[in-house]
């Protein structure tokens, strides 16, 4: 019985979509526009998230040592770094090395440094974080732990710009959901209207079926399926438009920014989100179908 219901609803829904193809195309494009906006925002935020996560994990941090650090403190600090899984490698930079670097990087200011009676630059350890093993939170926690270690003057792990980038991603995601939400509401109403038009076109048929004693699920089912198919089609159209746009934009970035941008970081929506977008589109269409189906009593 369920298979009969399913095949009947699907048959009728396909038939109706074909008969009303003009208005259905309009409805599908409305859903596609709504999901294109939402998908576009998701694509941007997904890539920003990916970049933030990767940059956070791959970040380096510097441990500045106190001038009076003891040998024992230095040994225990090294032991701490050796034992921790997020540490990929480390390099000790002595006070003399730091002065050398300063002279090399800021030659104009180097004279001032040489005039000082004592080298003011601290020795440091530059730590590179293991990108696969370290989440941003783990690195941050480790940096805080090091800050408390004896002999450590300061730990520099500047995440502010990454946090800002993360904030932008969150803001964009919310903006996407809000704008997408408004467009989705419009899409639900469009689907409902188109399905109601189809219902009016089939009014006689539905009336006759009611007189025959057709179960209410058989009368309403095709309308819900119609909405569902419109939503699914709309989502597929949105993805079909979004992908070439993504490819073109990616190529533009590659040309304009060249090696400055790690293109491996830029990707299309993950399969899970793409599937969710299609399911969401079907859900939107289904909601529109339900709104229209309520008129069958």
């Amino acid at each position, binding site marked *: *019985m369920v298979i*009969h219901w399913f095949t*009947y609803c699907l048959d009728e829904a396909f038939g109706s979509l074909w008969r009303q193809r003009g208005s259905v195309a309009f409805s599908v494009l409305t859903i596609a526009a709504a999901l294109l906006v939402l998908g576009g925002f998701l694509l941007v935020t997904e890539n920003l998230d990916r970049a933030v996560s990767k940059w956070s994990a791959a970040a380096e941090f510097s441990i500045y040592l106190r001038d009076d650090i003891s040998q024992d403190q230095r040994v225990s600090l090294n032991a701490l770094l050796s034992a921790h899984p997020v540490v990929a490698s480390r390099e000790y930079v002595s006070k003399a090395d730091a002065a050398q670097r300063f002279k090399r990087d800021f030659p104009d200011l180097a004279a001032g440094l040489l005039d000082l009676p004592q080298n003011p630059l601290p020795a440091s350890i530059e730590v590179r974080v293991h990108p696969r093993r370290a989440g941003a939170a783990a690195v941050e926690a480790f940096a805080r732990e090091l800050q408390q270690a004896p002999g450590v003057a300061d730990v520099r792990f500047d995440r502010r710009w990454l946090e800002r980038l993360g904030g932008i991603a969150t803001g964009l995601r919310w903006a996407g959901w809000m704008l997408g939400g408004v467009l989705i509401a419009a899409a639900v109403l469009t689907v409902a209207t188109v399905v109601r038009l189809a219902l009016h076109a089939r009014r*006689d*048929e539905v*009336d*006759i*079926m*009611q*007189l*025959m*004693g*057709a*179960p*209410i699920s*058989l009368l309403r089912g095709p309308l819900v399926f119609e909405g569902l198919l419109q939503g699914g089609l709309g989502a597929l159209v949105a993805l079909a438009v979004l992908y070439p746009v993504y490819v073109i934009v990616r190529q533009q970035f590659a040309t304009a920014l060249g090696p400055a941008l790690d293109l491996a970081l830029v990707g299309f929506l993950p399969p899970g989100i793409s599937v969710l977008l299609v399911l969401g589109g079907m859900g939107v269409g289904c909601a529109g179908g339900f709104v229209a189906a309520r008129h069958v*009593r």
Partner: protein
Amino acid sequence: MIETSHLSKVYGRGIYALRDVSVVIEKGEFVFLTGPSGAGKSTLLRLLLRQETPSEGSVTVAGRDLARLSLSQAQTYRRGLGFVFQDFKLIQSKTVLDNVGLVPRVLGATSVQQQRRTFQVLKWLGLQHRMNAFPLELSGGEQQRVAIARALVNEPSLILADEPTGNLDPDLSLEIMNLFRDINARGTTVLVATHDRELMRHVGRRTLTLDHGRLVETR
């Protein structure tokens, strides 16, 4: 089979379409329902089809009080009925085969059962050679026979017909009425609303006469 008790139907501002109608129609009977336009014939049929519910009194079919049926129970009840209307109510976009086959289809019959039942009833009504035609390609008499085929395909225990010969010439009307007589001879209860006195005289069955919503005569 059918029993109405002090049945009334009121529309709008106290306008009675039916007033205090009490009738009993036995199982297997063939009954005509007649009266002038606006007498309440169609209202009674709509009540029997459970398209309307009584304002007063009750209507019972095969022991079921129609006013008490839920939406899904009403649909189940209708599956035991066949209906025929003056305007045929055929789906123009479907062939004869699909129009008739729609009933077993919506009621969950398998494709094989659906085809067998549909073909049997079309053959009985002499429509097997027209089964791939669309309603607009058929004559009025053929269209009405398709509507009757659709009413019969589910082997209902009760057939309700509202002016089934209203759009047909006298010869075709007689042909259709003879069909109803044959259907009744197989044990199906038939209630036909008509104002064609000639036909009623020809068929010669019990007649209920309504006027201004009241039952004024039973012969």
